[in-house]
């Protein structure tokens, strides 16, 4: 008998648009010691499945039908009281963000011992011994000394280990891990995944691993199910599903995953999710003409668009009336060069200083030292840049979080046309409106978007709007700071395609900043690597990915989840067409 057996599970939510099915007829069978990956894009209902198993559906959620059996025992009709008795004892959970999933006011020991005492009949002294051995088991070094510490004294990766120890306190049969490594850096992610794998095998615990990340699925799961809009698309052995997906949606999903091993010219667009073409092509064409008619467009200006030398940026952090503030040197003596029409990928882990470089380039952060030339002309870097400097129009930026980069109180039309009006790029209101709709058409948005507010659009659509706003300024250089990190993988593929198209058509230079090596590979002609504020390596992209010179670059590449289990996108594309 399977440890967990879900059949035909349906969950609904009461919303202001009436009742919505979040999960519709989902099924799953999970054995002890098995890791099952539940993969899907945002809104697919994967977290809802996890919450339903725990009996912790958020407000308005309700199980409509189906069955969830744990060791043959039906959970769906349990009373709240019985379900609570089951939680922790038989089923446990690992949350996404280790920063917020531990109580900040209690020591690790207090939280562990409390959980052990709740579920076992051990004495307090025995419970303490048990807590210590659990910490050792999840790989906390010097556990005896650290057990009395508070959560804030641990790093992110260590905290996630503590969370895992807490989930193991009661020796559960089943663990639900909801995006357990999404908040962690790649290097730490690899270790935590290895730990989950080891514990599942050793203790015979079934793990339901919920994630959006194909890399994580490929790395540790035995079986996988793909969810879309609450419905099961495909399920089976991980190797089979990733290597030879049978459903069109899983094929397109897998084809959308950028590979670190190879560069594709365009991501194959297999699903129906792409922007509508054809009907609005006349509008888009007009937009393209407008962009190409800009003074200095095309190849009139040659050579380096950006030449940055010796950039250093520091911040003051903390400090007050009686305390010395610390000076943090975020960027140290960095030089970069970017040619017209070229894409430079800037990679590094969080905190390496790559975003700071972007902010110094656009003049938001003042630099302490450095010289910047833009088309050979010096541009202020260490002092405030003039408000009417032409570079303010020609250098545009695309931000990571499309939910924060658009003013939620403005209509999309006003957002996109703001640069037009501010830089005086149009003669009158009618021309501004025409250019705005054509810019939106160019990024694949309908013209009726101008009358709507940003909250009426999804993340990917918002990012398109942000790109339209950048284009409306008729830029020569786009700085993209993690432009797709907040997006689903299929949407990421569309946005990356869009950026490539725009670059090809209008000859823009792009500074592409990302922590994601596979994504950077798809986009870049050259790559520069940052570590702790220092530029450690720079060179042509192909050479870099084949044989990185610096140790740190090698480490980064090695830690990136291997995707060689995944089917080749071009083969998938060929299959679908056929």
């Amino acid at each position, binding site marked *: 008998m399977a440890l967990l057996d879900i059949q035909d599970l349906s969950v609904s939510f009461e919303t202001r648009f009436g009742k919505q099915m979040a999960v519709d007829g989902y099924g799953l069978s999970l054995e002890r010691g098995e890791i099952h990956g539940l993969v899907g894009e945002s809104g697919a209902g994967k977290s809802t499945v996890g919450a339903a198993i725990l009996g912790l559906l958020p407000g308005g959620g309700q199980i409509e039908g189906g069955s969830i059996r744990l060791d043959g025992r039906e959970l769906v009709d349990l009373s709240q009281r019985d379900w609570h008795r089951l939680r922790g004892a038989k089923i446990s959970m690992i949350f996404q963000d280790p920063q917020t999933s531990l109580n900040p006011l209690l020591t690790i020991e207090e939280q562990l011992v409390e959980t052990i005492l709740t579920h076992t009949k051990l004495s307090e002294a025995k419970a303490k011994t048990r807590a210590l051995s659990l910490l050792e088991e999840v790989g906390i070094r010097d556990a005896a000394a650290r057990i009395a510490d508070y959560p804030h004294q641990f790093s992110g990766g260590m905290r996630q280990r503590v969370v895992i120890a807490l989930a193991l306190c009661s020796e559960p049969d089943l663990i639900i891990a909801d995006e357990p490594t999404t908040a962690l850096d790649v290097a730490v992610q690899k270790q935590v995944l290895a730990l989950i794998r080891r514990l599942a095998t050793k203790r015979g615990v079934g793990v339901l691993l919920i994630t959006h990340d194909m890399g994580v699925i490929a790395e540790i799961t035995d079986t996988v199910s793909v969810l879309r809009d609450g419905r099961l698309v495909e399920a089976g052995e991980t190797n089979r599903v990733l290597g030879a997906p049978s459903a069109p949606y899983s094929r397109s999903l897998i084809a959308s995953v950028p590979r670190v091993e190879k560069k594709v010219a365009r991501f194959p667009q297999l699903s129906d999710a792409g922007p509508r073409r054809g009907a609005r092509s006349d509008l888009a064409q007009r937009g393209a003409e407008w962009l190409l008619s800009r003074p200095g467009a095309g190849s009139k200006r040659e050579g380096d668009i950006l030449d940055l030398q010796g950039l250093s940026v520091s911040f003051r952090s903390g400090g007050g009336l009686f305390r010395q503030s610390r000076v943090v040197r975020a960027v140290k003596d960095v030089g970069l060069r970017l040619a017209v029409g070229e894409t430079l990928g800037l990679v590094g882990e969080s905190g390496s200083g790559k975003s700071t470089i972007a902010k110094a380039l656009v003049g938001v952060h003042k630099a302490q030292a450095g010289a910047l030339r833009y088309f050979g002309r010096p541009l202020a870097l260490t002092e405030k840049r003039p408000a009417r400097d032409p570079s*303010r129009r020609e250098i545009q930026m695309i931000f990571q979080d499309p939910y924060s980069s658009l003013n*939620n109180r403005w209509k999309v039309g006003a957002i996109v046309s703001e640069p037009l009006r501010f830089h005086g790029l149009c003669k009158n209101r009618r021309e501004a409106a025409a250019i705005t709709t054509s810019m939106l058409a160019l990024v694949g948005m309908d013209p009726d978007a101008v009358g709507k507010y940003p909250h009426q659009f999804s993340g990917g659509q918002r990012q398109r709007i942000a790109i339209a706003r950048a284009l409306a300024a008729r830029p020569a250089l786009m700085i993209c700071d993690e432009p797709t990190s907040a997006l689903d993988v299929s949407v990421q593929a569309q946005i990356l395609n869009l950026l490539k198209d725009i670059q090809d058509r209008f000859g823009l230079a792009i500074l592409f900043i990302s922590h994601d090596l596979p994504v950077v590979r798809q986009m870049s002609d050259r790559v520069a690597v940052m570590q702790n504020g220092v530029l450690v390596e720079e060179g042509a992209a192909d050479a870099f990915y084949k044989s990185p010179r610096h140790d740190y670059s090698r480490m980064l590449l090695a830690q990136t989840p291997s995707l060689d289990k995944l089917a080749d996108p071009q083969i998938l594309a060929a299959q679908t067409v056929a």
Partner: protein
Amino acid sequence: MAIEDSADQGAAKRETLSLWRRIGRRSELAYLFLRSPPAMIGALLTVLSLGATLFAPWVAPTDPFDLAAYDLLDSLLPPAWAAGGEARFLLGTDDQGRDMLSAILYGARISVLIGGASIAFAAILGVTLGLAAAYLGGWFDHVVMRIADVQLALPAILTALLIDGVARGVLPSESHDRLMIPVLILAIGLSLWVDFARLARASALVERDKDYVQAAEIMGLPAWRIMLSHILPNIAGPILVVLTIDLAVAILLEATLSFLGVGVPADQASLGTLIRIGTAYIFSGEWWIALFPSLALVLMVIAVNLLGDFLRDALNPKLR
């Protein structure tokens, strides 16, 4: 994507829905409002009391400020339904023979006027200073926030009492009555601006770090325009909540000051003044003189607080 799809399905079914449900679909706030009976009761009461006070000259049976309209012979009559009551005076009369209902309507009018004006003053002053402090930073920020600290050390009612006391000391007594209402507005406004300044500053600092503000900065938009056209609309929600909650506080403060006898002059009796007059008659059994103005005051404030509670919950993104 899933959410988008379902929104489209929702749109397709829209035709079959009632008018109210349709409004609910248009706006999140309207949807929540229509599902919250307390909020609807609050809105109804607010509209009723606002209407009654604004149109007091037309609604009220008599003009309580008109000396010729009342007669000492009618003084201290109980409500119409009690023994000895007269139909002319639904809620009875006070010690001067004035109709209580009219006095309450006119009194509430003064309460609403002072409450509304002082809160508008506090909001404009506080939001302006808070936004400027957030954006200019440096010494200006320091000065504003330290003044706010000092203001916090002095509870609102003390500030209002003090300003009132100073006004008594400084103003010549003949202009005193005439200037009392502006002084009250100033006093209450000055005692409540800190709420707005701190809120506006804190919210503006949060918004300032968001990318849409950075985008505007990169473009070269001047700071004051970023503040007014980008940040202000985005912090309007929380400000509206405090505006509502503090309106209730302002009305209570005015009533308290008038009750203590330092508020509006007696010939322009607000609800607080009426209650003060009424307390003298509690021991002799004429309970209605204090009770009805109290009820009117409490109902009015409850109405505003119901709305404030609703807005606070509805506009708090953490709750959803």
